[in-house]
């Protein structure tokens, strides 16, 4: 065995890549190359991320004083609804699958493209169309129902542009379905020779589980939103209690989609972390099969826990008991994953490059998000904590502390592969640390606010909550700096960054076996897989190398 830890072919500088293969606008807008579509998605969701972030900033700004810095409740309600709709459907759900997933699924499988490249491009156009419809809803005056669109507020009482917003979400749903369908078929049908299911990286397993949720849960949301729109347009419908309809039926249908959607958002993040921790520990992933089957278990059980959003909504006592215990069950696989990542670091050779720092930040914040989930899964505690800032803090720990950190971790990890450039390492590390600190300062006070009873979605609040709100808003400024920093240095690196080698981290995985950035057809010749995943050399070899 040579002294090189992981061998990778080196490619001459200036090798033709997918980036240089056609430089016209047309060559980008009509591309069917999964890597270019990933870039299109990168651009789009970045716009949404900072748009939704700006709305969040205004929400935090408003809450600095008890009576609200923004004069009208109308504006405030529209701001947090916009924030929710944009962040959930236009950032969190597509974030990893449509960008990193689109880019990496064929590369990791040893395939040349996804199974249906044109469908892939269509999904991006649907996504953009959906975004434009939501933009229209915003410009026409916004929506004030919250991202959950509860009836009968949304169907009969709200005076805002519910139908336009719902239409945008409806179209975005089909974009998600197209992506999910493409991934499932690709993973089944386009694996390179020797790429058995148990040789697939966990990232692919996670995306597979995510895709199953996308394909099976999203259509239910689509139908629910159709029923809602029908009711709103014709002033008559199935959720209207005046006719004998049931407003709770909407909540059941909505959460039947939206709880799996929570896992649609987080599962890809769990996959990203499962790639990065072994790579920067130079060690096999601890308990690979456990981690894999945890992803599948999460996907299956997540369909059975929607009722835990309705413990105080007026459902039966017995259904609450069932949903509570299932909610605890679904938390177990996530806990197992955390232990497996720590097990991976055990006896490893841990390096603290920026992706690893983001990943460690993820593990910490995700664990806190998960643990506070135990509070709201405990029925009696949920009665007190639900619909308060405790819940807001809980899901931001999972979604922002967890998912956005995972997205950034993945973005930094694969940035050299995607762009062929290295970002400035010290800035990357600084970004990871600032985001971790800023995030905690923003959201940790909200746990206390929630326990003390401050309801969510309040534009003004009793004065005793002010101190904690000011703390939270102050933290948000640091968090904002943390998110703007990567935008700046990653953009800088596109032009001035050092050129990346094919495998700068010494990582396993087929994507590191091709050039950075990859060729248009991904590989010079179709690779053959002969090893298990994460086949990092045994410790004594690494020790000698270090």
């Amino acid at each position, binding site marked *: 065995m040579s002294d090189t830890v992981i061998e990778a072919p080196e490619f001459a500088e200036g090798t033709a890549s997918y980036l240089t293969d056609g430089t016209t606008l047309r060559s980008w807008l009509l591309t069917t190359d999964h890597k270019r579509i990933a870039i299109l998605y990168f651009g789009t969701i970045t716009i949404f991320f900072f748009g939704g972030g700006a709305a969040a900033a205004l929400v935090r700004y408003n809450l600095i004083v008890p009576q609200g810095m923004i004069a009208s409740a109308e504006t405030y309600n529209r701001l947090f609804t916009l924030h929710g709709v944009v962040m959930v459907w236009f950032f969190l759900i597509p974030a990893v699958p449509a960008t990193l997933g689109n880019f990496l699924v064929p590369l990791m499988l040893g395939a040349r493209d996804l199974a249906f490249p044109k469908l892939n491009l269509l999904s991006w156009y649907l996504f953009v169309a959906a975004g434009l419809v939501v933009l229209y809803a915003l410009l026409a005056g916004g929506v004030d129902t919250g991202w959950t669109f509860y009836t009968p507020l949304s169907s009969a009482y709200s005076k805002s542009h519910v139908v336009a917003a719902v239409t945008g979400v409806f179209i975005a749903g089909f974009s998600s379905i197209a992506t999910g369908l493409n991934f499932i078929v690709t993973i089944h049908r386009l694996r390179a020779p020797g790429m058995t299911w148990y040789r697939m990286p966990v990232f692919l397993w996670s995306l597979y589980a995510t895709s199953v949720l996308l394909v099976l849960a999203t259509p239910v949301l689509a139908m629910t939103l159709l029923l809602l729109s029908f009711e709103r347009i014709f002033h008559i419908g199935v959720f209207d209690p005046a006719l004998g309809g049931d407003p709770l039926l909407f909540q059941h249908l909505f959460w039947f989609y939206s709880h799996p959607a929570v896992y649609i958002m987080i599962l890809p993040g769990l996959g990203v972390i499962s790639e990065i921790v072994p790579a920067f520990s130079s060690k096999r992933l601890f308990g690979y099969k456990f981690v894999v089957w945890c992803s599948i278990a999460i996907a299956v059980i997540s369909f059975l826990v929607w009722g835990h959003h309705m413990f105080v909504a007026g459902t039966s006592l017995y259904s609450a*008991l069932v949903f509570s215990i299932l909610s605890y069950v679904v938390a177990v696989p996530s806990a197992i994953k955390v232990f497996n990542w720590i097990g991976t670091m055990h006896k490893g050779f841990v390096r603290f490059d920026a992706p690893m720092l983001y990943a460690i930040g993820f593990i910490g914040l995700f664990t806190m998000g998960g643990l506070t989930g135990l*509070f709201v899964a*405990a029925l009696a505690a949920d009665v007190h904590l639900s619909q308060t800032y405790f819940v807001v803090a809980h899901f931001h720990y999972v979604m922002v502390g967890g998912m956005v950190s995972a997205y950034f971790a993945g973005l930094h990890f694969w940035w050299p592969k995607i762009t062929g450039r290295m970002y400035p390492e010290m800035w990357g590390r600084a970004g990871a640390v600032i985001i971790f600190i800023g995030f905690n300062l923003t959201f940790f006070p909200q746990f206390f606010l929630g326990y003390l009873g401050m309801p969510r979605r309040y534009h003004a609040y009793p004065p005793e909550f002010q101190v904690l709100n000011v703390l939270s808003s102050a933290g948000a400024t640091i968090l904002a700096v943390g998110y703007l920093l990567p935008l700046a240095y990653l953009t800088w690196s596109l032009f001035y960054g050092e050129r990346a080698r094919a495998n700068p981290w010494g990582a396993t995985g087929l994507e590191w076996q091709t050039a950075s950035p990859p060729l248009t057809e991904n590989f010079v010749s179709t690779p053959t897989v002969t090893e298990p995943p994460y086949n990092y050399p045994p410790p004594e070899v690494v020790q000698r190398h270090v």
Partner: protein
Amino acid sequence: MNLWLPQATTSAAEVDYLILALLLTSCAILALVFGLILLYMIKYRAGSDFDRGAPDERTWRLEAAWTVATLLIFFGLFVWGADLYVRLFQPPSDALKIYVIGKQWMWKIEHQGGQREINALHLPVGRAIQLVMTSEDVIHDFSVPAFRIKHDVLPGRYETLWFEVNEPGTYHLFCTQLCGTGHAEMFGEIVAMPAPEYQNWLEQNGAAETLASAGETLFMRYGCSGCHGGNGAGGRQSGSTVRAPALAGLYGSPVPLTDGSIVTADDLYIRDCILSPERRRVASYPPLMPSFAGQISEEDLLKITAYIKSLTPEKLP
């Protein structure tokens, strides 16, 4: 910065113990996770020449161990939370009923004696209180943090909530379900007072008539008595030509329905019979009852229900 929330009800302390248990469990797990990460970050950093030895291949025992451990801890928390929840929503039979109507954007309270309040609820300490709640428009949520309770208030349904306050004082009442523009203005206060003071308050705010007597007037005005007879004696008995069921003694008794099932006549059943009579129709009577949906307000419904209830003598425990 005050991180203390008053425990104003008998069950508030129990909820706090549960939350404390959850907090301690979380801190322990968090200390384990953060501790191990920090330890491994230092001990196994790439530069350290700590001897790693051969990699350990037998992982399944560890996996099984932490899977079982988490399952057991979680199951314990589930049982604790569920047990308390079941008790939180089982009202004692002698609870004092107070009626709550949510409306964009105010809380309307009706006491049995006919006293009415808006965005305020006066109640006695040391007595179990049951709120019977409904909404005129969208979904609201009746939440009192100091009592550790909340429940959604839905249009077209009666939802209930019970508690027993043991600390006199004034507490926040919030609406915690987004209900439109004025959501944040939909708050009020709960004033808990010792029983004698509460009696004083009731008398000072005494209404001309109780809920039930106001209901009797409405029972005539809406024409109910035309078929159901004066005093709800039933169609035949009062000489009416229409055969309609008697309402005296109805409340709390079993009612056979056309589909063969039997329901107990509670608030919701009476409400349903008035608004959508075809839904759960009583057996052996012709379907003549018209629907009053859209013609009768939530307040009037409460009053008529209170009247029908008053036709049933209080059962002694």
